[in-house]
């Protein structure tokens, strides 16, 4: 009872705070200064049609690097927490080896390449259409999730996933450092030529960096799923 009272009190205080914000809120009519700069100068400066992409990859690129690092640390922490001890008292119960049903099997063979292709489409076209590395990586991890559900007895090659992850992570940092020497600064995309606005090979380094981010996120989320299943 006392616990309920204190919980309600805490909720009430937070609600007062939120009420103050919500009652003074008015929908904005114009952009703030920084966003105004991004919208006006972004397309001609960086050559990417999708402004969110240019903010994520170039203008706030260092934040994205930190974010990818956080994701890597969380995947490593999950691996550390869910590792199987050598003297485990009760081993995980044996799964029956019966194959899964006909429908799931057929749908797996039909859909698995399509989902992977769609993920690749999303992160290659990140500078033109909505989407990008994080979304494409999540779609690829969903394809791997379909694999785990349809083939319960197989496992991934975890070493290969780890290699893809470390390769793309270090290539990301190296390409970022390349901009330090050949262009304006760290993670600047104007190392390659900007190309024609709106075509696939444009916007300098943005597609390359987004492909690397997509591979890294996809490999990390797939290894998290595998660790959860095998723990």
């Amino acid at each position, binding site marked *: 009872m006392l616990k309920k009272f204190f919980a309600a009190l805490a909720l009430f205080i937070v609600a007062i705070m939120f009420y103050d914000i919500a009652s003074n809120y008015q929908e904005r009519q114009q952009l703030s200064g920084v966003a105004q700069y991004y919208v006006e100068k972004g397309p001609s400066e960086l050559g990417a049609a999708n402004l969110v992409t240019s903010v994520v990859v170039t203008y706030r690129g260092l934040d994205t690097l930190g974010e990818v690092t956080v994701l890597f640390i969380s995947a490593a922490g999950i691996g550390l927490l869910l590792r199987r001890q050598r003297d485990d008292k009760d081993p995980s119960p044996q799964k029956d080896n019966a194959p899964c049903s006909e429908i*799931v099997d057929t749908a797996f063979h039909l859909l698995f390449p399509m989902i992977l292709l769609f993920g690749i489409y*999303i992160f290659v076209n990140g500078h033109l259409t909505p*989407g990008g590395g994080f979304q494409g990586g999540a*779609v690829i991890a969903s394809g791997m999730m379909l694999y785990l*559900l349809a083939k319960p007895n197989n496992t991934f090659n975890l070493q290969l996933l780890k290699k893809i992850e470390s390769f793309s992570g270090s290539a990301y940092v190296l390409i970022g450092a390349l901009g330090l020497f050949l262009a304006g600064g760290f993670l600047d995309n104007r190392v390659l030529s900007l190309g024609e606005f709106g075509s696939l090979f444009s916007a300098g380094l943005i597609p390359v960096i987004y492909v690397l981010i997509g591979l890294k996120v996809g490999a990390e989320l797939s290894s998290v799923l595998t660790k959860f*299943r095998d723990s």
Partner: protein
Amino acid sequence: MAEAILNLSILLILLSIGIGLIRLVKGNTVLDRVIALDLLTLVSMALIIIIAHINNRFIYIDVALVYGLLSFLGVLAVARYLEKRL
């Protein structure tokens, strides 16, 4: 004419969202709620496409494509769990 058809389809979609929510609230078993999840995913896919038409931006359809390819995965995961073979 086209405007009337558009409005009618929005009304039907909102009606089916309401029906799905009723099944979600009432549903006695887990299976009812899974069916409600599937229905609501399909209906919101249609809603995204209609919003793309209203705003006249056809790049929004990519979001509906993601739903179309991946929406069955949640239902499949719950089904494998209920089979006790996850």
